């Protein structure tokens, strides 16, 4: 009786695994987009502000948005012109500095992508995404 129950349970698990694996394969490229940013990679405006001079603010929005307004001292670095903009960021960077990347809202993916490229391609440490993005920073200004 016990072994029958066990066998049935195993069959059910195996059946559940088939669509689960299929979905994991089909959506493999979408996982990183949909998963939330790990808390260790996020920073609040208050925390980032408390870092003062040891933080570099990076604006991952488009050129026009940056030109309209940005965090004072922020460096423009977006994926539209990554190759052109990266040198000026690297010139301002130093190993002891923390990098705070922001874009226009929490839903915007640009900050996350820029932070990822800085970590993966430039192999920088201490790169964070600003929680709530530009809007959160504006709120604290008011």
């Amino acid at each position: 009786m016990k072994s029958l129950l066990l066998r049935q349970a195993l069959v059910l698990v195996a059946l559940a695994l088939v669509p689960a694996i299929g979905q994991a394969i089909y959506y493999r490229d979408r996982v990183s987009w949909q998963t939330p940013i790990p808390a260790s990679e996020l920073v609040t405006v208050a925390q980032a502000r408390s870092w003062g001079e040891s933080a570099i603010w990076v604006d991952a929005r488009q050129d026009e948005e940056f030109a309209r307004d940005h965090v004072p001292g922020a460096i423009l670095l977006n994926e539209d012109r990554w190759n052109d903009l990266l040198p000026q960021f690297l010139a301002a960077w130093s190993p002891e500095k923390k990098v705070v990347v922001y874009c226009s809202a929490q839903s915007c993916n640009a900050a996350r992508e820029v932070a990822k490229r800085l970590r993966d391609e430039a192999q920088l440490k201490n790169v964070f995404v600003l929680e709530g993005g530009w809007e959160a920073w504006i709120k604290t200004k008011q």
Partner: protein
Amino acid sequence: MKTRILTLALSMFIAAVARAELKWEQTQLELHPAANDKETVGHFKYQNTGDKPVRFKSVRTSCGCTIAQTQKEEVPPGEKGEITATLKIGDRTGVQIKNVTVETDDPANVVTVLTLKAVLPVLLEIKPTFVYWEGAEAPKPKTITVHAGKDFPVKELKVTSSSPDFQTKVEQVGNGEFKIDIEPKQMTHPAATTLTIQPDNSPRRFYAGARVTNVPAQNVPVGVRPQNVPVSVPPQNVPANVPAKNVPTPSNS
């Protein structure tokens, strides 16, 4: 009284039967733009299969790099149309997934999320794109590896440094694989360079950076501030429409 009840019942019946329904041909598209494409466009086609018009309330994208456009604000019953999503490629590489959120007054599908997946060709994979030496470190060479994409056959790489403070050596280590050794000529003052990497098969240029940073105070010659790193930043690095006061500086406030 009977007429009123009949009218009410009839109008309730019509309201129940009449429906708006926007059917999407596809809500997910995969695009494979060519290496030199500046943008890639996805066409999300739909048809109103109901018998009531459907109105678009809003169309939003998940990224400023994607522009979505509707052909019309209202779709009459039976009509077809499409929403186009244009992704600006810029310097993006690899797989890009962008969402377009469409909100309509169709009660059956108030919100539809359209997904645009663009598989952008990776021409050169450069890792790392930045190397640095700290003041206390020995000025030993560091290596940057370059892999050419499978559809981007590269036989030769030309690497130039924007600063004479660094020397570079390029070596082919395999088919489409290269090694760039870079080393600073001195560690006595801060220095930075931008390496321009030019493959033989394309006019496109790729970049990597290197820096000597945090030079101990006793090594810094008089007149050179450690934070004031001499780096050649091409003039196009600042967008033309950015006012002078917005030119980025290393300082934060």
